[in-house]
């Protein structure tokens, strides 16, 4: 247990109202402590509420019971100290890649010289491998390229917390592998506390220091936590050579499979388990 957490979920709950007006507890008693500089992934079945937890952390969705504390401050609204990389890249298609990053940078460093701000944007765009395409309109970039810009935009804000909402969910597996490496490379130099939601077991193991497994909703909460002890910087090929990799994998998949059985027992099987079995 982390004694003095940087990010603390104090048993938070999210209760929606279903169309009939009945309360539906999506998340209940979610308790998690994250240390500064830690990379934590939340994994779970589709619709278990993991994205809800992330959106509450971003301040884009309201916490009903309990509170989320970042650096000892209660999160009560969205702000640029918590940068979000959305599942869809959410770039403004009418702006260039550079202007998309600049939009946030201008907001965070309003008093810096224009040159400094531009250099900052270019530095991160370069880091994610977009050096020569920075003046292209976002609409003209491929999905993989867009998500690179999305990552650059998040890091350029120099946030306290990086929130990643299934950031590679829309990409094909080759692009996804590339971008995982890019993300890890930038993250290694910045060590920004990161919280990522994913349903991809391999992605969670490769990127995280700890993987949080969420039980299936209703009343989803932390089911199990798996520390991943690979040394950093990590490289995909090296990580996959280790036997512990497959033990981690086994652990996570068993948790998800069990959850699936429970869900099936409730007659709630839908499109779950989509990420758990592909490798």
């Amino acid at each position, binding site marked *: 247990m982390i004694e003095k957490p940087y990010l603390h979920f104090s048993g938070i709950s999210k209760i929606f109202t279903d169309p009939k007006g009945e309360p539906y507890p999506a998340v209940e008693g979610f308790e998690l402590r994250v240390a500064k500089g830690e990379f934590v992934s939340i994994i779970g079945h589709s619709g278990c509420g993991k994205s809800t937890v992330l959106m509450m952390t971003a301040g*884009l969705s309201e916490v009903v019971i309990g509170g989320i504390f970042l650096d000892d401050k209660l999160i009560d609204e969205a702000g*640029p100290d*918590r940068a*979000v990389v959305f599942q869809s890249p959410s770039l*403004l298609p*009418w702006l260039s890649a550079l202007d998309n990053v600049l*939009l946030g940078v201008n*907001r965070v460093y309003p008093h810096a010289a224009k040159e400094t701000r531009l250099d900052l944007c270019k530095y991160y765009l370069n880091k994610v491998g977009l050096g020569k395409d920075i003046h292209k309109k976002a*609409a003209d970039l491929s999905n993989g390229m*867009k998500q690179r810009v999305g990552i650059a935009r998040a890091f350029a804000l120099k946030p306290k917390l990086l929130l990643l909402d299934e950031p590679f969910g829309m990409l094909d597996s080759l692009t996804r592998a590339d971008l995982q490496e890019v993300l890890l490379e930038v993250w290694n130099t910045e060590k920004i506390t990161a919280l990522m939601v994913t349903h991809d077991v391999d992605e969670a193991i490769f990127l995280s220091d700890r993987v949080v497994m969420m039980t299936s909703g209703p009343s989803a909460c932390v089911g199990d936590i798996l520390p991943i002890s690979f040394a950093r910087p990590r490289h995909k090929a090296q990580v996959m050579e280790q036997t512990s990799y497959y033990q981690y994998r086994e652990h996570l998949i068993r948790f998800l499979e069990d959850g699936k059985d429970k869900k099936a027992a409730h007659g709630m099987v839908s499109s779950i388990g989509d990420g758990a079995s592909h490798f």
Partner: protein
Amino acid sequence: MTEKIIGVMRIAGFNVFVPVIRLIQGENRDEQLKLLWRTIGIQGVTLGVFLGLWALIAPQIKTNLGQVPGPAQVWEQIQSLSLEYRMETKNRKAFAVTEKARVEQKRAENPGLEVKMRRYSGRPTFLDQIFTSLVTVFTGFLLASLVAIPLGVLCGLNRTLMSALNPLIQVFKPVSPVAWLPIVTMVVSAVYTVPQPWLEKAFIISAITVSLCAIWPSLINTALGVASIDKDYINVARVLKLKFSTKIFKIVLPAALPYIFTGLRISLGVGWMVLIAAELLSQNPGLGKFVWDEFQNGSSQSLARIMVAIFTIGLIGFILDRIMVTLHKWVSFGHGTAGA
């Protein structure tokens, strides 16, 4: 290069000419000729059939002003109107010369005296009427847009404001210009008591009537466009805590631009229709007044002249619409993959 020209043609809505360019470039002849036939060819045939039927049927109908004119009589009137225009221009120039001479002579005779230039008092030509109508419609359209777009943006962002204004919008939207006209006339006459020579009362009345009818499509479409902006974009604005003005100009307006232009296009179309009716009813200068004057004139050429006006109105309406479509396509670029 060819592809560039063709791209421009496509945006401007001149798809019809794409095969012509490809033909000139010597690309697969047969296919392009076939395409050409399917567009220009068929349109030509339709036009021919229309003119033929018109020429056949029109002489059968007798009215108080003689028989309904066919294409030939209308063509005659087009020429006669253009001749009148040239004569008028010549007269105006001649008048300007003699008037200048008169004023100079008077000043020479009596240096202390203030001598005024007299204005030419000839009646407005057909081209003058077209010009007046265009100026009026754009003034009214501009007035409407200046109110509709900001108000629409606010409505789109704020559900409460939207539901507050909705009843008013729904009730006023279907009101015909003919109903507005008497009120606008009375109000303008009451408020604008000291008319200036450069701003005629009739012009204000027409422009305001156009605005009152053209405001609704732009307002509704802007509100709809702003309300249906991709939630991700709004989340970006929230995460970055953008200033209100930055949010409006960098996110809301660009995202809603295609919707806004759809609204503006409908508004301009409505405005043009309304203007002709308003001019006709209120005797305000413009194409509508031309139609009414010819009707009152009741000569044997009147009906043919009115038909010239009808074709002119239609053609100008078409051109205005094309301009708006082109602008719409132009601002919609970069929205193709907006959802991704």
